């Protein structure tokens, strides 16, 4: 009798834990793919300049508030040649700021500095800025986005 009781409870425990584990790990099971997101018309970015742009996180929830606005740095070299950098410093993720006079990105946290092409210039970051994949369609600039970049996932 006792053995039956224990066995039934082990079974019940297993059945309870399945949906719990499934619920907890659902973010890993249905992993979201990066999506193409429109940043704006190519003509809105002046040539030879680097501008702050932002896009809506494609997996936006209605209760995200302002957190779904994701900033990025758009550098237009010439014509359709663009580079789009993630805002996050590659050291510890703080938002880097662009200084057009010295043509440097500087990080306010630990003093990471990057050149205008995103390459590492100084400070502790282990690599250059994260670069988005980009495409241009019908005069609009798109980036492939939707996750916060880190050393284990570089957008």
């Amino acid at each position, binding site marked *: 009798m006792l053995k039956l009781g224990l066995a039934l409870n082990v079974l019940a425990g297993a059945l309870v834990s399945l949906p719990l584990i499934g619920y*907890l*790990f659902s*973010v*890993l099971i249905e*992993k*979201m793919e990066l999506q193409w997101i429109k940043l704006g018309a190519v003509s809105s970015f002046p040539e030879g300049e680097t501008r*702050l742009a*932002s896009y809506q*996180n494609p*997996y*936006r*929830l*209605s*209760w*995200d*508030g*302002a*957190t*779904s*606005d*994701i*900033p990025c740095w758009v550098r237009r070299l010439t014509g359709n040649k663009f580079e789009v950098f993630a*805002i*996050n*410093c*590659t*050291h*510890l*993720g*703080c*938002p*880097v*700021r662009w*200084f057009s*006079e*010295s*043509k*440097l990105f*500087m*990080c*306010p*946290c*630990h*003093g990471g*500095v990057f*050149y205008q092409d995103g390459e590492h*210039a*100084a*400070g*502790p*970051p*282990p690599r250059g800025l994260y670069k988005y994949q980009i495409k241009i369609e019908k005069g609009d600039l798109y980036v492939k986005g*939707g*996750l*916060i970049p*880190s*050393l*284990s*996932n570089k957008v």
Partner: protein
Amino acid sequence: MIEKLREIALWVDDRLHITKLFESTAGHHVPKSSGSWFYVFGSGTLLCFILQIVTGSLLAFVYVPSAAEAYNTLNYMTYTQSFAWFLRGMHNYGSIFMCTIMVLHMTQVFLFGAYKYPRELTWVSGCVLLYLTLGMAFTGEVLRFDQDAYWGLGIGVALVGRVPLIGENLIHLMLGGPIIGGATLSRFFSLHVFLIPGMLIATISMHLRLVLAKGINEFPRPGHLVQRETYEQEYEAIIKKEGVPFFPKAISKDLIFAALVIFGILFCAAVFGPNGPSGTPNPTEIDTVPRPDWPFMWIFSVAALLPPYLETVILLVSPVIFTIILFLLPFFSGTGEKSATRRPIAVIIVVIIYISLAVLTYLGQMSPWSPDMQAWTGDVTPAKYLVGRSPLELQGAIIVQYKQCRNCHAIEGIGGHRGPDLANVGTRLTRDQLTRQVIQGGGNMPAYGQNLSPEQVSALVAYMATLAPNADQAARNSTFPGKPASESAPRIPKARVKSPGSS
């Protein structure tokens, strides 16, 4: 009448076992020597925790754990609802007091050898409480959902992202998705309000149960060694000989300390007020200088000061090693001397850890490694570094300003402190060295060669060569020590040359 009341009281006691509960808990016998000022920190930490539950539960009456609304409810609490600012202050300082007193408690337990046989698991459960409390501090910082919370999460992501293989999955679990958003705050709310407090209450119960089961550590006597074979009989003898009931004989100092802790929290909340909220949690507002709350400031400093090639390894591996040593301490040092007066290494370890934490926290507050983002627009150049310069040199002074050199380089202390102060750069570098440093960078300075025209470099170097306070000797090229100063020495402006005796 009195007889009737007495009867009711006895009935209640019989049904609820209050006297028995009292005898086995607050009334239990402790060594008289433990009624010491050194033994008040455990109860002080517990008191802080109870206060945190009270203030936290009340804050949750108003707080809305939604990424869209949390910031508004924080502002409402801080500026509109009566007394809510004070409760936020109490919760903030309650957390600071709890962390501090907990560390003092841990230090006392370590220095008094209280973790040794037979109290190993009391120590281990205490270590669990340490981590849970730090978990509360971090999740609580996120619940104050402002700019610092948002970027604090960003720092967490960057750290977790350094974990090999499973880093990405860990980030998804931590954020509730691929990016910081509504799901993130909800899960931190659940952790801060349900899961971690639940684990804390369970672990505290175990911790206290063990204190009762294995007794409070007697005040250590130098030279009296702990031995597995004899310790428990010795402890029993101490209790028999000089044991006193915790209440009312040994509790008085705990009570005084408890009141002081409450006064302290009330005082800090009233005088310093609540912490934040700072700017809105809007990632597109990037003019921000994220800083962690003070319990984690030392980690922020470590991340700035480690050599980059060691950073990931140290940040990921050292916490694991530290945790293992911490948890296993009573198992490799379970017997022997208890008194700190005969355990010099234990004392040195404590002193080193305290000094390191204090220095790193101070450095984190100062953050000399961070560029001063406003220096190039906001900071003045002291007049004496401009007077008497030629137009070319003044042109260089302007370049120092608008090319953001000041963000990293102070002039006489004004400006960023990332790089060396420029006030005396003319005495340290020759013109050739200045030119090379500006164009090629190096030593943690970016190369400016592509961003400066040759004319700008000449102006910049001409100006910097004049930066030699009190007409100090200019830097000279060692290959030609006798070479006239015209090329390598700064041209000291006449107006600034002071003759001895003049004021």
